[in-house]
Structure formats: structure tokens, C-alpha cells
């Protein structure tokens, strides 16, 4: 038997079961908390920091995707301060690598772009960092343009948790961090990649894309299969 807790998110009374995160409860109740590394169906890692919320009685902000609910919790998911912080984080993501929407395969179908629009971000004050990064187009179907990668690691997690291949992982640290295939060899030479394309499907930006067609022609919009696959896995005890 699971315990059910009641709590408030942005003043609304909501209920959730023990072990659920604030993010999950908010999603169930139609409250939109922004987030780019979060994706229903794969484990959360609390890295993008866009879902940071205020919890009454706590001096610190908490990541909604990683914080489990408790009885009587009062969560503020939207405030002036949080909006300012979220705008700043989004700006940092844009200014880290070479994000130019106009020439991107994911233009108008990009979660990062959508995030900026949703947060009312109109311009950037920070300078670009623009580290020199590569494009790996060695795979026969897909390619990765690291310039557009925001290191949400959805690809890494979906490959490991859903596909079970663990082709993707990360290397280096700080600004040098890159996602990699099979210990850093070109994607096309990977022996573990099953070419399933799940990583391309979950990528929030145009970093991972199918060769020869823009994201608009693909199916990067809704991903109903992920939570379903997770349920199937759990039922089979995997």
C-alpha cells in the first residue's frame, strides 16, 4: 500500500503517492515546470537546473525532478525570482555552444528554443563561449552535431535504460564535457549501437538528428513510447 500525500504547488492542492517527485505530481496535474534534462520514462539527474522550485521552510532551492514529495509540502514553482533564474540558465545554455536557430535542423521543433520563447527571453547579454567541437556523421543513419548539444544526457540514459545498449556515455569535464559513443570512437564504428534511433528521438535540440531530413519531417514531437516501454520493462522485471 502506498501512502498518499497532499501538498500545494503554486497554491493548488494536489495529491501524489509516496516516492513521486514534485515534477511528476506537477505533470499529472497539468502544472508546467520547465525542464530540459527531465524526460518522462527515464531516470532524472537534476542537471539542467531549470526545474528549481522554492519549498516553504527551506532556505535552498530544490530541483523538482529530484525532490520527492512529502505531506503538507508547499511548493512555489513559478515566481519572479525563479523566472529570472530560469532565463539566466537558458541564456547560459544558448551561449555555451554554437546555437543558431535559423540554420538548425530542429528549428521550430527544438525544446531549447521553445524554452527561451516560453520564458520570454528576447535577447542575450552574455558573450558566447563557443568551444571548438566536432560533428560526427560517421553513422549511416544519424549524426551528432556537438555544437547543439546541451549535455542533458537524455541520449545516454535512454540508450542505457531503455535500449540497454549503453552506447552513449560522457567524457571529460567542465566545458570540455562531451557525449561519446563507445569510449570515444566514431559513432559509425560503434559495435554496441543498435541503430534504434531512440537517442535521436529524445534529443531536445538538433544535436542528434536523422541524416537527410529536418526534424520537422521526423517524429521528434511527442514521445509516448518511453513511459510505455518503462512500464513493460518493469512488468517483465527487467
Amino acid at each position: 500500500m502506498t501512502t498518499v500525500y497532499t501538498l500545494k504547488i503554486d497554491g493548488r492542492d494536489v495529491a501524489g503517492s509516496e516516492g513521486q517527485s514534485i515534477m511528476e505530481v506537477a505533470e499529472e496535474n497539468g502544472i508546467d515546470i520547465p525542464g530540459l534534462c527531465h524526460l518522462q520514462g527515464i531516470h532524472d539527474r537534476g542537471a539542467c537546473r531549470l526545474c528549481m522550485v522554492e519549498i516553504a521552510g527551506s532556505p535552498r532551492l530544490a530541483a523538482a525532478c529530484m525532490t520527492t514529495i512529502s505531506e503538507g509540502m508547499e511548493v512555489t514553482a513559478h515566481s519572479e525570482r525563479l523566472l529570472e533564474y530560469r532565463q539566466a540558465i537558458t541564456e547560459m545554455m544558448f551561449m555555451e555552444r554554437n546555437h543558431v536557430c535559423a540554420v538548425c535542423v530542429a528549428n521550430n521543433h527544438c525544446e531549447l528554443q521553445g524554452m527561451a520563447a516560453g520564458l520570454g527571453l528576447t535577447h542575450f547579454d552574455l558573450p558566447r563561449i563557443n568551444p571548438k567541437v566536432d560533428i560526427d556523421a560517421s553513422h549511416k543513419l544519424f549524426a551528432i552535431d556537438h555544437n547543439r548539444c546541451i549535455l542533458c544526457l537524455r541520449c545516454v540514459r535512454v540508450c542505457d535504460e531503455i535500449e540497454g545498449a549503453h552506447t552513449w556515455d560522457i567524457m571529460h569535464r567542465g566545458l570540455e564535457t562531451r557525449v561519446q559513443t563507445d569510449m570515444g570512437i566514431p559513432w559509425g564504428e560503434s559495435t554496441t549501437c543498435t541503430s534504434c534511433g531512440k537517442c535521436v528521438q529524445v534529443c531536445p535540440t538538433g544535436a542528434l538528428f536523422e541524416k537527410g531530413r529536418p526534424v520537422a519531417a521526423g517524429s521528434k514531437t511527442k514521445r509516448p513510447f518511453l513511459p510505455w516501454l518503462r512500464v513493460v520493462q518493469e512488468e517483465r522485471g527487467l
Partner: protein
Amino acid sequence: MSEMPAAARPVRRRAITEETHEGPPRATAYVCEAASCMSAQAHDITLRLGERTARAGLGDVEVKRVGCLGLCAAGPLVEIAETGQLFERVRPDDVEPIVKALKKVKPADTRRSQGPFFEKQVRVATENFGRVDPESLEDYLARGGYEALQRVLSEMTSAEVREEITRSGLRGRGGAGYPTGLKWTTVAKAQGTQKYVICNADEGDPGAFMDRSVLESDPYRILEGMAIAAFAVHATEGYVYCRAEYPLAVARLRTAIRLAQRAGWLGGGIADTSFTFDVQVRLGAGAFVCGEETALIASVEGRRGTPRPRPPYPAVQGLWDCPTLINNVETFASVPAIIRKGPDWYAGIGAGKSRGTKVFALAGRIVNTGLVEVPMGMTLREIIDDIGGGIVDGRPFKAVQTGGPSGGCIPAEHLDTPVTYESLIELGSFMGSGGMIVMDDTSCMVDVAKYFQDFCRDESCGKCVPCRVGTTQMWMLLDKITRGRATLADLAQLERLAGIVQKMSLCGLGQGAPNPIFSTLRYFRDEYLAHVVDKRCPAGVCAIEQPAEVMA
């Protein structure tokens, strides 16, 4: 350095001299063989001194290597134990004065004062420094080693041990100052049959070398402290997570573990009781962030060393999801003394909510660079002027940086503040693990802030956005300021960014990264303004770029 790496060294090597003499030696020369003196040929001095005393027919003289004698600035150091006479900057080819002094030592001699550097210190965690051969279990036992563990195992319950630690007021010496007794109780009460104890020896702050010195000078003490902690929290396995950059510390620790296992102080059935505890060493591969406890645990587990949000805290869900106690080297080093001398004795030292003593590593523009242990509540002025001997070349003091990359710079007007966890936070700094970098008027505070930002930028693990991108953006702004190309808008942007990185980052590295900026802005805003508005660096450190002249 001919002896390093020390893996192939014989296990025991006590006296260098021929042991023909019956009874205790008449005179003993302690040669400091910690990393700092070792790098200045201290081991050659030991060998040479042994050779010379033997040739001079001094069979009743012992030459012995010991751990850190503290005054690293004057190394290599040799001390004559009986008289307290200290030889500084000894060279292997010039040991005759020491041999002469050894000849003169009489049984009636008493130790004379060694000056304020030594006299004003209170040694608890470092009490065996410079007194024992770091690898010798006999030496450690002779100085009261393992008395505490013996007492804990034979006379106390685990609850009593926790109670004593709580009563002593000991707080985490890694920097944050979390009450140690409370942490132990949390781990003890956490559900789970398997529990772990981890010693955090991943000391990475620039200018900090406390943990290294403890491991190099008195490794058994850590093992005893960890065993007591394991008994108190019902753990059976322990790990020491030490950075690989400390080869001497790792070698001595490994020797100590081996000898302690052999003597029955580690392993199954310790001291003929049913208590079982064993320790393994894990080496860090050079990531600063692995000093953060959740990243450290990931690293011990063999995963990528990145932090995860807390809660759940490691005390509840740590190594391999089991309740795990993580304490700093110095915290464990204080434990045996607390048990041996009683919690009230320890609580009697210190000030306010900060009880006991703290080890500091003095570095920078200070005369007595080295390792000191002082009671909490001593003022910064006493530490820097009396113990530290003031500033090199008699230059004016400008600031002292405490707490490493998460700390701040404290200016001259606050030198009379007593050093406690709370007072340093109030001043916008941080206790940190205990590094103190002293700066004089040749340091530019903007440049210092830039240095620490560069450090954080380089050491960011890259997991969360505010730390990965924010630290670089802040560093770029500071770089712009130091080159004289910034505007007041850039300064405002820097402050805004610093606030966001502090609030939004995932772990202590990112949350603390803006602290050097905040504290230098708080006390040295005029220096920032000089760079931004007047395009000059008051300390003359920064290379201000002159704007190209435009032909009218």
C-alpha cells in the same frame, strides 16, 4: 627522493644507527621526512647523519625519521628531541653541527622553548607529528596509540561512543562544520545491515596540505579514528579516498594498514573482541569535485565522479546505497584523543559553537609557511603575526584567503576576529579544510578572484549548467576586468551571475564558486573600480591593455 615511490621499501626501518647501545638512547635526532622536507633531500640527511654519528662513535645516539615538524618554510628540519634544538635548512653535506650538538646532549637536559611558532599551538590531531616514525606501529603505540580503541571495545557501548563525540562538540573538519556526533548518530540509526565508513582525503584546495600531512605523519591515527567510528555506527568496512597526487601519504597509509592488520588492529576480531573492521584505499584521479561526498561515493563505486542532489544524504543512502559515514581526515584524527582524554577536555578548548582545535596550512606571503594547529577562537592576527611570523620582507598585510575556492578573502580590519565556523561565514568566508593563503600589497584582489574562478571553471564536472557555463562566464568577465576592458555594466553582470550560480548550482563546488568574487567585492570594491573606471591595477599585477590611439 631516491626512495620514492615507497612501495618497495622495507616494512620496518626504525633506527638508522647500529643498535649496539643498551637501553634508551642518550640523544635522538628527529629528521622530518614529510613531503616538503623530503623534496629537499631530508632522506639523504637521515642517512648521512646516521653514518656520521656511527663514525663519530656515538652508539648511544638514535637518528630517526619522523613526520612533519610543522615549520615547512625552514625545511629540511632536524630536531634534537632532548633539548628541543632545531636545525633549519639542513643540507646533507653539512650535518656536522648536528653531530656536535648530539655529542653535547646530557641526560639532565630539558627541552627549551622553541619560540611562538611552536609554543602558541595546541596539538590534538597533530600531537604525534614530529614525534613518531610514521610507519612504525610501535612508535604509535608508545605514544598512547590504540588506547582509545581498546577502551571503546572493552568498556563502552556504541551509544556511549556517539554520546562522547557529541559531547565533545567536534564538528566536521572538512569545512562545513556539521556536528560529527549528529552525523554518527544518523548513520547508526539508519536502516541497513551493511554500513560503511569513508575517510575523505581528497584534499584539493589550492594552498591546503593538512590532510596530506596527517596521512604522512601519523597514518595509524586515521585508522584508529575510523575504527572507533565504525564501532559507533556499526560499520564493518571502510575506505580511505585519497588523491593520487599524494604518493607518500598513500604509501605510508598502505604500510600502516598492512602493519595494523598484521597486529590485529584491523580485520576480523580486533583486540580479541568480535568487532570486525577493515580498510581499503581508493585513489582519486585528480578531480577536485570528488571531494564532494556524493561524487566521492560515485568515484569509490567506480563510476564517473559527479555529484548528485541531496537528500538522500549519504548517511541514509551512500556507498552502494548503504548508510555511509563520511568524515574528513582531520575529524578522524581528533577522535582518538577525544576518547582518550575525555569529551569535556576537548570541549574545554575553543570558542562559541566551535570546540577543539583546527589545523591550518599557512601559505603565501607569510614568514613561517607550514602546518599549525590552534585552538578555535584564536584570532587571525595571532595566527598570522605570532605563529606565522608576519609577512615576508615586512610588507603590509592585505588579506588572508581561507576556505579554498569556496572561501573568501578577509581584509586587515577583521584580523582580530576569532576564528570559528560562524565568524568566518559572517565575514563572507568559510572555514574550509584549513588552507590560509596570506597576501600582501603585491597581490591584486581581482586577480586573486580570477585565479579561483579559473580553478572552479577548470574543476567543474560539467553536470549542471550554472556551474559548467556560469563559472566560465564569470571568469571571462573577470578576465575582461583585469585587462581593463570592462564597463560598470560588466561589473553588475558579474554580480548578477554570481548570485545565480550560487543559488542554482547542484553541489558545493558551484554554490561556493562565487564566494571569492563576493568577498573581494565586499572588501575591495575600490580595486574593481580602479580596473573598470580608471583602467589601472593598484597592485600593478594585471596587464591593463591600453586602448589603441585613434587618429583624429
